[in-house]
């Protein structure tokens, strides 16, 4: 699957997805759970704003010195017996990986979840060689068996499918005969994939953070699939976007702490694994051969531009989970593997305005994404900047914002956005609230609260209050 996931026009996708009742319920409930857990974890950790600022300074420093750290990384990978290939384009990356697959006579390849391999359309390239490519992340495996459906969420790719649909996919494609209980479905996949890990010729992973000082790569998962993908096959290939790097283990730790809290509301996920080079000489598991493929594919053009902050992204999807537009239209509407606010900013930059010029209008510019971002990317400002660039280039907006908001159900005629925004405001503000006033507001409130206290949002929104009042005393 490449960046672009649909040939339908943007408006058609909006209409289609707004009709998908299961998806819409699933998305709004998922957003609420992700958000609640993230806020709980942030509060429990304490000093969240300081953590965000630290995350931001690390990411900014790395981007400003990216060539230095990539140099150091590649030297250290080579010292530990790994090969490093710098790929300017998606084509160069897939050509190189194809050449390894050919050299190894690879029949079967297992993969753990990786957005960048989706971006460069790696599976198609390997399948063209006749390799069987198996995704091992539970959500991605489901989508692969379901005739390669595109992911609808960066962290939870199969969010749009319910358990009955998943059961039917396995039944139809693989003769699965058990129930739709998630535990049974997972156990079925566990047993099915076990044999695949053990017999695969190559394991392919993405990379959450490469560590320059040691030449290590860090993988963050809950399922344990990435560990089996890297422990069992004789050859390991890791593909990383060139910006996914930190100076040392110490910065890796900070970003992992931000990532797991922001992505899934966990202090750490079940498995954080750092892998360094090939296995040691006498080790009996781990790869004998290791290739690190560092991918540019349009990223360097973002460096030095006003969009550079998007390269700070650590792919946690906190912005996706906070976005009122994503809530209404779901992931597939974006027509890109990167959905939600990060997708709105990144897709036109990596995939071009031609395919993605409507995306910057899939936003209310409310700034919820910016407030949620653990590394302080000014997402809504970047989205706004995209609109300006598009209008400068085309002389007009490609789509009527007013009509779009109406289609999303976010116009003045609908109180949905209003209701959600005000309900989120109270819990979102709580870390900063003391005695019902806000003393250290995030984002847009900051300048104001530096000078004075801002009254805290009431736990009951005005509409809720009116409703109770009317119910209680009015009749």
């Amino acid at each position: 699957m490449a960046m672009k996931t649909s040939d339908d026009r943007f408006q058609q996708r909006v209409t289609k997805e707004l009709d998908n009742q299961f998806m819409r319920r699933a998305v709004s409930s998922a957003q609420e759970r992700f958000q609640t857990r993230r806020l709980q974890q942030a509060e429990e950790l304490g000093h969240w704003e300081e953590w965000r600022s630290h995350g931001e300074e690390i990411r900014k420093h790395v981007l400003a010195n990216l060539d230095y750290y990539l140099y150091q990384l590649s030297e250290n990978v080579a010292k530990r017996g790994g090969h490093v290939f710098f790929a300017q384009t998606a084509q160069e990356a897939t050509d190189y990986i194809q050449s390894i697959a050919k050299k190894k006579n690879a029949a079967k390849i297992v993969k753990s979840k990786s957005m960048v391999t989706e971006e460069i359309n790696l599976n198609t390239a390997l399948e063209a060689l006749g390799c069987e490519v198996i995704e091992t992340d539970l959500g991605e495996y489901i989508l692969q068996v379901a005739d390669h459906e595109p992911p609808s969420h960066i962290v939870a790719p199969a969010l749009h499918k319910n358990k009955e649909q998943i059961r039917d996919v396995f039944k139809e494609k693989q003769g699965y005969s058990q129930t739709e209980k998630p535990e049974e479905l997972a156990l079925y996949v566990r047993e099915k994939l076990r044999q695949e890990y053990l017999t695969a010729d190559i394991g392919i992973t993405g990379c959450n953070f490469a560590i320059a000082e040691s030449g290590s790569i860090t993988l963050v998962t809950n399922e344990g699939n990435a560990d089996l993908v890297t422990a069992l096959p004789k050859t390991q290939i890791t593909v990383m976007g060139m910006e996914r790097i930190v100076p040392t283990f110490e910065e890796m730790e900070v970003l992992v702490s931000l990532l797991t809290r922001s992505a899934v509301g966990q202090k750490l996920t079940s498995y954080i694994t750092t892998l360094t080079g090939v296995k040691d000489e006498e080790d009996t598991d781990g790869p004998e051969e290791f290739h690190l493929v560092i991918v540019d594919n349009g990223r360097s053009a973002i460096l030095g531009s006003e969009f550079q902050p998007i390269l700070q992204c650590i792919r946690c999807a906190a912005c996706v989970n906070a976005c009122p537009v994503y809530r209404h239209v779901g992931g597939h509407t974006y027509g890109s593997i990167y959905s939600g606010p990060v997708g709105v900013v990144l897709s036109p930059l990596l995939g071009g305005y031609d395919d993605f010029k409507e995306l910057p209008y899939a936003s209310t510019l409310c700034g919820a994404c910016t407030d949620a971002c653990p590394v302080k990317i000014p997402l809504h400002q970047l989205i706004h900047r995209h609109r300006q660039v598009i209008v400068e280039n085309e002389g007009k907006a490609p789509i009527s914002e007013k009509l779009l908001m109406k289609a999303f159900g976010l116009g003045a005629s609908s109180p949905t956005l209003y209701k959600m925004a005000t309900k989120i405001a109270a819990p979102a503000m709580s870390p900063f609230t003391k005695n019902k006033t806000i003393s250290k507001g995030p984002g847009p409130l900051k300048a104001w609260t530096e000078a004075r206290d801002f009254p805290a949002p009431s736990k009951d929104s005005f509409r809720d209050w009116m409703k109770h009042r009317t119910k209680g005393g009015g009749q």
Partner: protein
Amino acid sequence: MTGMIQRRETFLANIAKQLGRSPKTELPRPTWQYQPQDRVLKDATKDELVEILIKQCANIHTNIVISNTATLPEDLQDVVDKYGGQSVITWKDKRFQDYGLSALMNEQWPQANIQLYEWDSQQPEENIRQAEKANIGVTISEMTLAESGTAVLFSSKDRGRSISFLPEKSIIIIPKSTIVPRMTQAARWISEKIRQGEKIASCINFVTGPSNSADIEMILIVGVHGPIQATYIVIDDQ
């Protein structure tokens, strides 16, 4: 053997050009303006950290047993029984002997028909075959993170990576002396080793409970590709 590096020069030159300068070959270690990680559990005593670890285990679906060197064999036996016995795979690690487990592992288990397989660097294929069919894998934590309930495992020729992933059940022995507040201390420790020129383990696992997923309707499933159940046994080794 040193690996190959391909197409680096033009790639990095392009990055430097985009950043509006010439390529950087030297850089002092950055000084950060913020360091929030040092404050977490800063003043907690070892016993308080154990309490935090116990509480966190409830959040990560992990059973925790507080033991000591005297009762460890008995406590380990209990957990193995609870997990249905059958077959156990362990690292080849002198610490099992130091913790007084030799009699249990080498005498009692064979008598009770519990198969023990010890990782053997001479037998690569047999190791995987045994790990795949073993019911229980037993490993030892090098450093243990109280905040998140995480054990840190270092691979080596005698400490296979697969032991904590392939068996359905995982038991990790946690020497009390290894408990620290959070991942910050582990990261610093490893970073320090690297600065001293030490070769770090090719695989470092930060393991936090059994494997899990919420990929189906956001419903939590405990036990996916890795272990389905996990127990930590804390021993007082000080």
